[in-house]
């Protein structure tokens, strides 16, 4: 792809960030009253809405119920207006199904599932605008929504992408950087214990570079954690202030 310089000699990426810098993250919790928990997150131009229902009774047939832990139901979808060209199928395509499955696995590792046997938790995430790192934004949004719903978790789940441009590891890649075919690595992390709950690698990466890209991804995740944690604290103080005043 001629004409675009992904990493300049001065160490700037195409959008003016340096390799280790995240995109701007803004988030809000409790955006909907109807759901048990909800959150909205913006990572750069990627915008995601997450809602959580539950824990509640199993819907649609008791046979699905698990006797020792909660049933986790996740659904990932992309709004038809989320990409440059209108999407014809907002959910249920192969990619969305894969994303849903990944999301379920991620949160099964993080939520204390044994507390709610024979019940169900639903996590719905919807991508409103897509600009790279969709999955990570979804994970981060879902974390906030789960916290908002008051479901106990082992830790926050923070996700971040990283990649390798011209032998330099970069963090939180945008759609532009994604689309040139650089190796994209997705890491979801439990920051306190530094346990990796999801690790995904798209396209080939030389094993020599794996470590530094992974380190970059982990660093990105811990940075994301800082931001999420701060916003949760702000939200909680805000809510408690409101309750005090009423």
């Amino acid at each position, binding site marked *: 792809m*001629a*004409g675009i*310089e992904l990493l*300049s*000699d*001065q*160490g*700037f990426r*195409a*959008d*003016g*960030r340096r390799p280790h*810098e995240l*995109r*701007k993250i803004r988030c809000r919790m409790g955006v909907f009253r109807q759901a048990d928990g909800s959150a909205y997150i913006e990572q*750069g*131009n990627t915008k995601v809405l997450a809602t959580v229902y539950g824990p509640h009774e199993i819907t649609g047939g008791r046979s699905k119920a698990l006797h020792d832990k909660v049933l986790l139901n996740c659904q990932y979808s992309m709004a038809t207006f989320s990409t*440059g*060209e209108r999407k014809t199928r907002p959910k249920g395509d192969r990619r969305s199904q894969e994303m849903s499955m990944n999301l379920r696995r991620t949160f099964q590792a993080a939520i204390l599932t044994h507390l709610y046997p024979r019940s169900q938790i639903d996590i719905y995430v919807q991508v409103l605008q897509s*600009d790279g790192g969709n999955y990570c934004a979804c994970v981060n949004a879902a974390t906030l929504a789960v916290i908002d719903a008051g479901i106990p978790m082992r830790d926050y789940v923070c996700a971040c992408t990283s990649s390798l441009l*011209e*032998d330099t590891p970069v963090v939180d890649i*945008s759609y*532009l950087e994604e689309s040139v075919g650089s190796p994209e690595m997705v890491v979801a992390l439990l920051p306190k214990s530094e346990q990796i709950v999801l690790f995904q690698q798209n396209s080939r990466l*030389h094993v*020599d570079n794996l470590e530094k890209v992974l380190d970059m991804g982990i660093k990105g995740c811990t940075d994301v954690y800082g931001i999420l944690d701060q916003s949760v604290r702000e939200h909680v103080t805000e809510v408690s202030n409101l309750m005090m005043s009423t």
Partner: protein
Amino acid sequence: MIKTEKHLRVRNYRGQTVRVVREHYLREDVPCNSELCLAGCPSDGSRTLLPMATHYIVPDCQVTRDYLEILELPEITGILFLQTVLHSVLHHGNRRSYNNIRKMVKDPRQQCTIFANEYCHYAYCERQPGELLKEWQLRSVYEAAVWYYNHLAGQVSIVMITEDQEFIAKFAAKTRQVFLLTMQEYLKTFWPTLSNALDIYESLSASLSESTVEKDTTKGYKEYLPQEILSAGIKSGRYIQGCVHVNKHRPQREAFVQRAGGGMKESGTDSDIIISGMLARNRAVDGDIVAVELLPKSQWVGKIISLTETHEGIENTEAMIDSSNVMPTGRVIGILQRNWRDYVASFSADKENKGNTSKAGKVLVIPWDYRIPKIRISTRQSDSLGDHRVIVRIDSWPVDSQYPNGHFVQTLGSIGKLETEISSILVENSISIRSFSEGQIKELPSNSSDDPWTIDPEEVARRQDLRDSHLIFSIDPKGCEDVDDTLSVRQLPNGNIELGVHIADVSYFVKPNSLTDLEAKSRATTVYLADRRYDMLPPILSADLCSLIGGEDRYAMSVLWQLSPNYDVIDVWYGRTVIRSAYKMFYEAAQALHDGKDVRDDIPELEGLDEEVIQERLRELNFSISTLMSIARHLKSKRESGGAVQLEGLEIQVQLSDKKDIQDLVPKQALEIHETIAECMIFANHWVAKKITEAFPSFALLRHHPLPRQEHFENLLYCAKSKGFSVDTSTNKNLADSLDRCVDEKNPIFNKLLRTLATYAMSNALYFSTGSLSRDQFYHYGLALDRYTHFTSPIRRYADIIVHRLLMAAIKEDEENLLLGNKELQDLCDHINHKNRAAQHAQRASQELFQALYFKDRDPNTDESCVVDAVIFGLRTNGVLVFIPRYRVILNTEFTLHVVIFKSTLTKSDYSCTVTTATSSTTFHLFDHITARISVAASHAHTSMTRFDLVASVPYCSNHKEENATQRLHEKTDIVQEVTRDVKQEVAISTEINDELGSDFNELKSKYGQTKDHCSIYSLLQQFKEMGLEEES
């Protein structure tokens, strides 16, 4: 950081416009990269503008695109390239100028930098709705310039160069000290003395203004397809990507496209593609990377197999085409990358032609290289430069123009002068030689008689001291100044033998990224021309401090092996050492010593010693040399038995043409000592290669020799078959074995010729970075080693310096962070390979030049040295290719293909061809000896070429009996071109020749017979040079 958004409209792969929103972050910490900065911008190392500049130049987008050449001049420094400008250069499709800017910025001598204005919070200005791209770019550049001026608190004035008069009028008075000038005004105000720049400016602007005039006449060229379609087509396999190679002998008719991506994988299907004719070539110039579409099979043609003479572009109309043997034929449908360089050209000698064109200010110039089409340039100096060689550059080749448009850059001098011709050779091979700069000399230690350089005791403490423990000596060609390798060998108390190779420690003096290092990197190799050489390192290093001169303490990099009595390697040690070479010998003396002759006169170090001491010393030395030789013999046989092959004859030929290795300079019937030294060096290189690949599996610099392509062996197989031999080319071992069998007792030259042909089939050895090739491609075909590198000549080759650094890092003596990554190293390797090839070509061209000078003086009709024996080794439909055994000593680099041309009709059968004229007919067979005469065809626009004409179809060294045959052949003089003398004269002369043969032969032998090394070829060619000079005056 502040986040904003950029809204773009981008065309997608289906051709629809899509609205794209990209983030754009503005930040405060963008470094200004100036040393004058008061705000404490974080600087990133070497890339800074110098404070001594009186002003900084800020060129705008248009100026940078059009006049980059002027900005590239070394005199003009302190240029600030803005990111906006850089993007505009990149987006308008000119990746080369973009890379040039990047190169300039990396080179500290140019003192220019890039400022990322679009990311800077204060210097960025958003594009207003409805604002044209051009206006926005101009405004951005101006805003950035103003910000920069304020940022530096007005310490320097800023000159913004733009060609937009409207903008100048509008903004000129807005900010004091930020001046808006056009390029012309700028050059006139600031550089009134730099006439060079003004010249370039004028020719550039002339060619620019001209290109805006549209013409309607179509010359039949087709427009190129758009890039997206090309790249999609290449991916799907519909089009083929490759590099254009124009046939030198038939530049108008024939060109080949060599498919990209190396051919070893599927050698069956990817032969070269013929591009026949200028229309099919569609404005591609030699060296361009193009996309080709194959024509239907019915339109495929074969190679042109007849010989023609090309003089000043005139071609024979009838060219025979090998219609039985068609090759894939295609046409160029798009250019992926132009590879235009500087071309040497001259004005047409035709006066009439000149008169017509100069009115319009446009002249056609004829490039020196036959393969390049004529170039149309605009200049008013065509009268004064009529007999000069000039450098021109191609700017564009519009679809409606028969010839490309270019501009004049510089004159080299008048045609025919030696200096002009030499600099033409250098320019044609893109070798630019500046003298070493003052800053560079200052970096280096000095060594004079009143302030002698001594080794540093602290440094000695860090190194292994071998000065007293080892007998170290060097064996080099006579008169060699830059001794970079020495040897030592000694018996250890435990019965083992210790072999040491000690190489000059250049990397100690040349620190990474120092000026010397940068200069050496850009030169990459020492360039040897026939009469001079251009060193890679300044003389203080190459001839003095790094050179391992006898009797002086020097730093070295050593490899010491402990060998068992059977010469198996038990242990190896690498490290830095201090050595003192005891003897500096030359090859002949060492060999004589080994043969038991008295050589004390040849070893100056022995002078003034007692007889007994001398005897003792000689015995020591003799022991060392004998041991070395037997080690070398063993190493060689081990290489052979380990599947390795003795391709010596071949290897030498290959390597001779690039003349870089000592071992490679050794001709086939060399003294054994040559081989011994070569073998030791190969051994050292091999072991160093092993070590660095182990330590750095993904970024070590190695050298590999790829397998040859089987189709290149066709000529060899054909020639061998004519004599009833078969050659097996499947592996290197089989090839060498079957070549050994091909011996014709009656014709000793036969074997040599076959080896030469085999050599032509070989690919070149190349440097590479281990990370970029798979492990099985590391193999060195010629030497039959799995890993090989260059370690032993750091004074002459930059690759060796890199290898030294790698080795030091591998044994943990230097910190690793100075090493290059795989990508950078591969780039560097490509650069070195490129430079090496250029150096070889230049060397060959210079030798041809001197060869031509040598024969120019001689009248081919009277001078006996112009009549020589020749052997036929190739047949064409209207001539034969011959090889001249006698002059190959001079032509050392290669056995040039010489062409004999017949006027008459000629029929060709399998292994012979018959010439029929009105009076007689003669048949020529492959490997027949004939007599040929050498003459020089002078040329105005090109180099003078040596030409060969057939004199007689019998061997030249004939006795009187055969003279009658010669006489009979005189009847055939009408079939021979340019034979105008009458029969009697010829008889007289040929008798004379035969009489003189004896003395002449001896003289030649004494003159050339022993010239095994390049040094004495220099002295020989020096004579030619003098002859050339005399002729000039």
